[in-house]
């Protein structure tokens, strides 16, 4: 068998649809998610939360027999009462001041679930007037200004100035597996946490601060995770902290698994946004000046809001060149549950606005939506609003052309003619791969590759949450070593054995961590030379190679002025949507969605297509169905019966096309893919509605909003 290790042709892995590493365990029900695990002596935990959006706690009344219960409040926290992330403003448990509904106050645990759920706790509070409207907020978490050229000069040259305001709503992640954690105490005072999560080292860091212990006393292990989409980026730290407090106080393993209602009420959502555009254009459609204002609702605590805003504003021009740009963004405080990471991370909001606005500009000028895009789309060498000179893999025009071809765009438009209530819409967009600005440098991610007698083992903190991390990273390593895919194992994401590879977010896992592993594999290949792994290990002993992130040499970023290379590179995407709306019910029926993406290189084509298909479906929900109803700062529809995500019956045919313009510093040319499919479909849908005579400017474009738009325009 050993000679097989060197047969590169026989072991081509990259670009092939190899079987998912954990595929069999998932289809046989053997894969273990957090709620499938049980520990000796385990008890169950429950979180008691605020019911008002703002106020003070006057008294807490335990209206049950507390015998056999473990009860935890803020006074049981050994370290600092906070969830460490960006700003230290969010407590783990409320001391007295309530800042949003469903804020955690008290924790209960009991060996019997029924007893636990029956326990009645009454929180006596003094209400204060909450801030619920972001436009009325007096507290700004982060403000960003991006400025290029001179917008006033640009407006001076313009033939027309077009203004518009666009709004996007909250969105729930609705991973089908709700959040959950199990904390297991050990006799020496250490704690191990198992759970559904995206970022083991975020949880690890939060636990160290909360418990006031060194890193050796905390271990975090990811269990099989039933979807994340950003929703398991920051919130799992809170649940892990809660479970750990109960476990330490009771001395017993403690499981907290949210039910659907609690998950939808208490955990994070996508930031709602208001985006205002004022654009100066020449009569031929050339963009001369863009003034953009972005306001995002952060909720009650900062969480990841500054970074969400950052990605949002950088993408706010859309993929278009313009010499004079001003983008002003702010994310503000309201007394609503904190909003957090969600696939796309600020970009879906601003790209919705830019693409919908562009169609209004074209309409004002009497131009074709395609023509105005072709005229202004970024080419390689163009300069973005932050002053980044775009790399050679910039492919806005190619994805646009492919999407038009694939959808038979012009013929469909001809066929529709003036036929009312049917329209085709386009959205063109870009998405920066990896962390924004200097983020990757600050993270300094690590990856480790260990030689085994049978091959090699990948050790990274990047998590498999459905997107195919284990498989795709193994493919990259196998290909680089020239070994078989099956000879590469992937370690569980367990902080006891994996280095900090950074969080599994920002479409960075393949491009950044994949590249780190490629470098590990290159060195391993060189070091073992002509030996087989077994021979090498016998002769030289263990071999373990760790690589740290190195910035591509040309990348420069000035975080203070928001100037420079915002991302190493960008993915490019285009949607064409064909739809009809019903004049009686005002319901929209999407007939077809074309989704074309330049992702550099598809390491695993079906997985990449799967990201596109799944992300597109989520974006269709965002555009049409998924409305979070807030009543007095609290989610009023926290169930799958009244918060509607696309089913098989409302998901239209989605056709994914992958384009490969390779990125020099990505593994085998790969860039990010995960988030980008979320960015465009909402705009393409709203633009198709516009073509069909409905001018909506807010999503979700529910039948109510469409009816309003239709009646208003009459």
């Amino acid at each position, binding site marked *: 068998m050993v000679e097989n290790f060197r047969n590169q042709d026989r072991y081509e892995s990259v670009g092939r*649809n190899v079987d998912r590493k954990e595929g069999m365990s998932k*289809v046989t029900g053997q894969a273990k998610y957090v709620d499938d695990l049980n520990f000796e002596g385990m008890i169950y935990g429950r979180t008691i939360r605020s019911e008002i959006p703002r106020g003070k706690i006057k008294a807490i009344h335990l209206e049950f027999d507390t015998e056999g219960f473990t009860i935890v409040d803020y006074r049981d926290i050994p370290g600092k009462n906070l969830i460490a992330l960006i700003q230290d403003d969010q407590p783990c448990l409320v001391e007295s001041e309530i800042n949003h509904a469903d804020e955690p106050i008290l924790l209960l645990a009991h060996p019997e679930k029924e007893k636990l759920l029956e326990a009645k706790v009454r929180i006596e509070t003094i209400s204060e007037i909450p801030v619920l409207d972001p436009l009325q907020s007096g507290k700004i978490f982060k403000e960003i200004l991006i400025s290029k050229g001179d917008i006033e000069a640009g407006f001076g040259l313009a033939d027309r100035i077009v203004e518009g305001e666009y709004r996007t709503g909250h969105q729930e992640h609705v991973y089908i597996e709700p959040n959950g954690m199990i904390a297991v105490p050990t006799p020496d005072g250490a704690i191990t946490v198992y759970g559904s999560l995206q970022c083991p080292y975020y949880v690890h860091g939060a636990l160290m601060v909360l418990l006031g212990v060194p890193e050796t006393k905390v271990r975090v292990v990811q269990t099989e995770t039933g979807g994340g989409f950003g929703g398991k980026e920051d919130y799992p730290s809170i649940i892990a902290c809660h479970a750990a407090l109960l476990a330490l106080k009771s001395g017993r393993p403690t499981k907290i698994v949210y039910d659907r209602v609690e998950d939808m009420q208490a955990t994070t959502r996508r930031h709602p946004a208001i985006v205002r555009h004022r654009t100066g254009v020449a009569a031929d459609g050339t963009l001369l000046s863009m003034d953009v204002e972005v306001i995002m609702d952060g909720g009650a605590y900062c969480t990841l809001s500054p970074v969400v805003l950052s990605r949002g504003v950088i993408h706010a021009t859309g993929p278009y060149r313009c010499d004079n740009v001003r983008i002003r963004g702010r994310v503000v405080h309201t007394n609503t549950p904190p909003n957090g990471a969600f696939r796309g991370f600020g970009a879906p909001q601003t790209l919705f606005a830019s693409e919908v606005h562009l169609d209004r500009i074209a309409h004002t000028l009497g131009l074709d939506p395609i023509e105005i895009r072709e005229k202004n789309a970024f080419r390689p060498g163009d300069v973005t609003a932050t002053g980044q000179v775009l790399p050679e893999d910039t492919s806005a025009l190619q994805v646009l052309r492919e999407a038009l071809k694939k959808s038979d765009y012009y013929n469909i438009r001809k066929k529709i003619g003036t036929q009312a209530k049917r329209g085709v819409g386009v959205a063109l967009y870009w998405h920066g791969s990896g962390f924004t600005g200097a983020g990757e440098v600050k993270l300094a991610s690590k990856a480790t590759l260990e030689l085994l007698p049978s091959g090699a083992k990948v050790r990274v903190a990047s998590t498999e949450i459905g997107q195919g991390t284990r498989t795709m990273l193994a493919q990259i390593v196998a290909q680089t070593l020239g070994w078989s895919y099956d000879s590469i194992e992937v370690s569980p994401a367990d902080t006891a054995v994996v280095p900090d590879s950074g969080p599994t977010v920002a479409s960075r896992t393949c491009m950044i961590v994949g590249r780190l592993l490629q470098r590990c594999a290159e060195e391993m290949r060189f070091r073992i030379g002509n030996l087989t792994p077994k021979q090498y290990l016998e002769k030289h002993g263990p071999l373990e190679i760790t690589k740290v992130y190195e910035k591509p040499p040309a990348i420069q970023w000035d975080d203070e002025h928001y100037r420079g290379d915002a991302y190493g590179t960008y993915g490019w995407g285009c949607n064409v949507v064909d739809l009809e709306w019903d004049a009686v019910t005002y319901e929209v029926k999407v007939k077809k969605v074309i989704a074309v993406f330049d992702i550099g290189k598809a390491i695993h084509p079906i997985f990449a297509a799967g990201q596109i298909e799944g992300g597109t479906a989520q974006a269709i929900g965002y555009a049409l169905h998924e409305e979070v109803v807030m009543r007095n700062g609290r989610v009023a529809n926290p169930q799958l019966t009244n918060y509607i995500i696309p089913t098989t019956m409302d998901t239209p045919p989605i056709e994914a096309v992958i384009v490969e313009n390779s990125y020099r510093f990505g593994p085998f040319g790969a860039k990010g893919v995960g988030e980008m499919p979320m960015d465009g479909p909402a705009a393409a849908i709203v633009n198709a509605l516009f073509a069909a005579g409905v001018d909506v400017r807010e999503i979700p474009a529910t039948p109510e909003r469409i009816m309003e738009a239709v009646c208003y325009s009459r």
Partner: protein
Amino acid sequence: MLFTLNGKITEVSAPSMKRLLDVLREDCGLTGTKEGCGEGECGACTVLVDGLPINSCLVPFGQVQNADVKTIEGLIGHTDLQKAFVSECGAQCGICTPGMILMAAPLVERAQAEGRIPALAEVQETLAGNLCRCTGYVAIYRAIQTACGAKSEQASVISGENG
């Protein structure tokens, strides 16, 4: 109480109002059946009772007395459908997968017996009560149709012009 579980006569003493889902997961140790919503909306908890798919979060244990219950663990020998879910990437995060497979299993069995490939609309209707947030369903349809003999389609990849 007696019932047949994955082909074996099984006795479990649990309150008759306990959800079948909990009995399977807690009393029988079969955790392949998942809970996504607890209110009959997501289908993650789908099992077969006397050959028909039901939401086990809505069924009290008492109702399956003497019935024949099949869970994902009861599909032995890796059916064509399970294999197709792997090769066509019908499972991403996998949490909806056991429910999807059990919901589709009777359709696939019927179609295989009749030697036909179920039409897309038929597959969509069958799965209308099962939510998947990862795949956009495309790969799930492909897995079901491939299990019935359809040719597997490859993702369409175009080389770049600029890089």
